């Protein structure tokens, strides 16, 4: 039977485990850091020397760790892009903005095991010669910010932070920076602008790749909370050993946030790719199945930006069986929960947040809810995103308020198809289009039927309803 594999959350939910430093130390905390700070340069056969920092970065590369924030980009590769010759300081920022709808995993780490994050950060900073780092935490987590500040103060008091850490000669300071309620601050360049004290308008790439021109136009690493925690375990067990967890190219564990219509919503840490979406939803170790008497309708597999999966959908997956590449048809429930399988299914594991919808859900309403989020959160810099996200939300509003039209489905598709694909500065353009494209394509008859029913009702009621509709439209416009 598939079960959880607790690496990051090993201690978090144990009875009596507390977020203070004494408890963390009792459980072997900061031992990995001590080991890393004591590392010696390695003499290579060709006479060159490899610094401890390079050795640590090699381990992260070998581990195959992919970013847990959303894009799933190789952490080792990201670090290798950092401009180390500019002579400018290198900054590291922990992305604790956790705002992708459906996601609640970083919250668990911050609230229950903040020192694990801090140890992961110190190791990552040491490996990249970073002397100043920030934790950018979303504004709506005031308790989390307090806990982190307390944990940082505890670490400083024990000389695990500050000047000459544990006599190693290495200096590092970490500060907590609070956001103020804007989703776009999770996008790394928007986050950087926000940390510079500006509106969080994402920067255009090129040229503003954080690894070269990040915070204060200096090389900057932005990593998710969970990614940075993983670094601690990579250093502890070695990159090769870490890579044995999970599946090839999808190494390690992931904390899956499961919400919506399951009996046991919650966060579950699994080896990547060792558990399927169906098991996560139905297995008694995980979601425990749908509510009684209900059938599955749809699953959003990677946070609200991910393309929806329809119950019963089939996909052709390329897999390796006995060393040979074969193509297999699998049901959406049998998709292994990892980065690559979901990409092959035309969607993504994103922030590893699964939202389950049963047959009680009005799919048009569900999309209207998501689109309202994006219309509210677009930063407004790019016309296709600013206008498009609002138009989509308005069309969905009328479809869910008795004002729909038969042609609304096509209209929605047309707008959604004209936002992504290099027309916008950041990936929010894709993020707001993907749900619309996939919901409308996969449930088109429901969108059309809703619009048609509204039209029929209007035709039947004639003038009376038209004037009532006009009145309603006015109130909608006033909003």
């Amino acid at each position, binding site marked *: 039977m598939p079960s959880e594999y607790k690496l990051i959350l090993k201690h978090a939910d144990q009875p009596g485990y507390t977020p203070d430093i004494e408890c963390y130390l009792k459980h072997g905390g900061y031992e990995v850091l001590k080991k890393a700070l004591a590392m010696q340069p390695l003499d290579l056969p060709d006479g060159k020397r490899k610094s401890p920092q390079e050795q640590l970065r090699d381990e992260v590369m070998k581990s195959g760790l992919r970013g847990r924030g959303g894009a799933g980009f190789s952490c080792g590769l990201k670090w290798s892009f950092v401009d180390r010759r500019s002579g400018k300081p290198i900054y590291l920022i922990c992305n604790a903005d956790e705002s992708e709808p459906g*996601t609640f995993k970083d919250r668990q780490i911050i609230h229950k095991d903040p020192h694990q994050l801090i140890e992961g950060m110190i190791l990552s900073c040491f490996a990249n010669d970073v002397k100043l780092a920030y934790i950018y935490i979303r504004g709506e987590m005031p*308790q989390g910010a307090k806990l982190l500040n307390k944990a940082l103060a505890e670490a400083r008091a024990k000389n695990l932070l500050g000047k000459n850490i544990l006599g190693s000669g290495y200096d590092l300071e970490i500060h907590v920076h609070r956001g103020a309620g*804007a989703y776009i601050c999770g996008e790394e360049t928007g986050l950087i602008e926000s940390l510079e*004290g500006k*509106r969080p308008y994402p920067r255009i790439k090129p040229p503003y790749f954080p690894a070269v021109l990040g915070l204060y136009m200096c090389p900057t690493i932005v990593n998710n909370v969970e990614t940075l925690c993983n670094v601690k375990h990579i250093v502890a067990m070695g990159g090769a050993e870490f890579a044995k967890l999970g599946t090839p190219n999808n190494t390690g564990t992931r904390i899956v946030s499961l919400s919506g219509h399951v009996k046991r*919503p919650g966060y579950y840490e699994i080896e990547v790719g060792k558990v399927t979406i169906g098991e996560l939803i139905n297995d008694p170790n995980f979601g425990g199945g749908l509510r009684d008497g209900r059938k599955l309708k749809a699953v959003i597999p990677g946070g609200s930006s991910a393309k929806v999966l329809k119950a019963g959908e089939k996909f052709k997956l390329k897999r390796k069986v006995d060393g040979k590449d074969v193509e297999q048809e699998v049901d959406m429930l049998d998709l292994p929960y990892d980065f690559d399988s979901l990409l092959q299914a035309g969607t993504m594991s994103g922030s590893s947040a699964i939202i389950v919808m049963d047959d009680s859900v009005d799919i048009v309403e569900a999309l209207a809810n*998501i689109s309202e*989020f994006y219309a*509210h959160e677009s930063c407004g810099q790019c016309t296709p995103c600013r206008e498009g996200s609002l138009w989509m939300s308005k069309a969905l509003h009328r479809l869910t308020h008795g004002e729909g039209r038969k042609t609304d489905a096509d209209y929605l598709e047309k707008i959604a198809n004209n936002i992504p694909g290099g027309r916008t500065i950041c990936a929010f353009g894709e993020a707001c289009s993907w749900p619309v494209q996939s919901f409308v394509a996969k449930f088109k008859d429901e969108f059309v039927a809703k619009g048609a029913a509204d039209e029929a009702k209007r035709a039947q009621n004639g003038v009376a309803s038209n004037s009532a509709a006009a009145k309603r439209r006015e109130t909608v416009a006033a909003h």
Partner: protein
Amino acid sequence: MSFSVPAKLETEIDELITHYPVKRSASLMVLHALQEHFGWISQAAVEWTAKKLGLQPINVYELVTFYPMFRQQPVGKYQIKVCRTLSCALGGSYALHKHFCDKLGLDAHKHGVQTTKDGRFSVEFVECLASCGTAPVIMINEDFYEGVSRAKAEEIVSQCK
């Protein structure tokens, strides 16, 4: 009306500014500190912040108008934020929001934050609060409540004195 920042708060703010190599970076943290103390960000607070950080008032004002958490007018003593986004909506957050509004004499269909006449309560919808597994969730000021049933809502409100 004169605007004055108590010495203790100013010391705290001065310390926050030392966290950054560039003063402007402290803007959000300074605004949070001021809002925590005064309850909202007035024009005078904007000007004070700008002066403190060596900025033009517009540099601070454009933050207050962009970031949803900053208030440009006073709000209730108890600020009820109901998560509106999908997982919470599936868990009944719209009915919960309406329940709060009805109970407090506010209009559930109005957009944005609404405050009761006596200034005690504000109610608003906010976007995903990163606790979707325990939907529906709400925040009241800095406190967080999960799996809020109607009965639990009643109990929470009755404790707000």
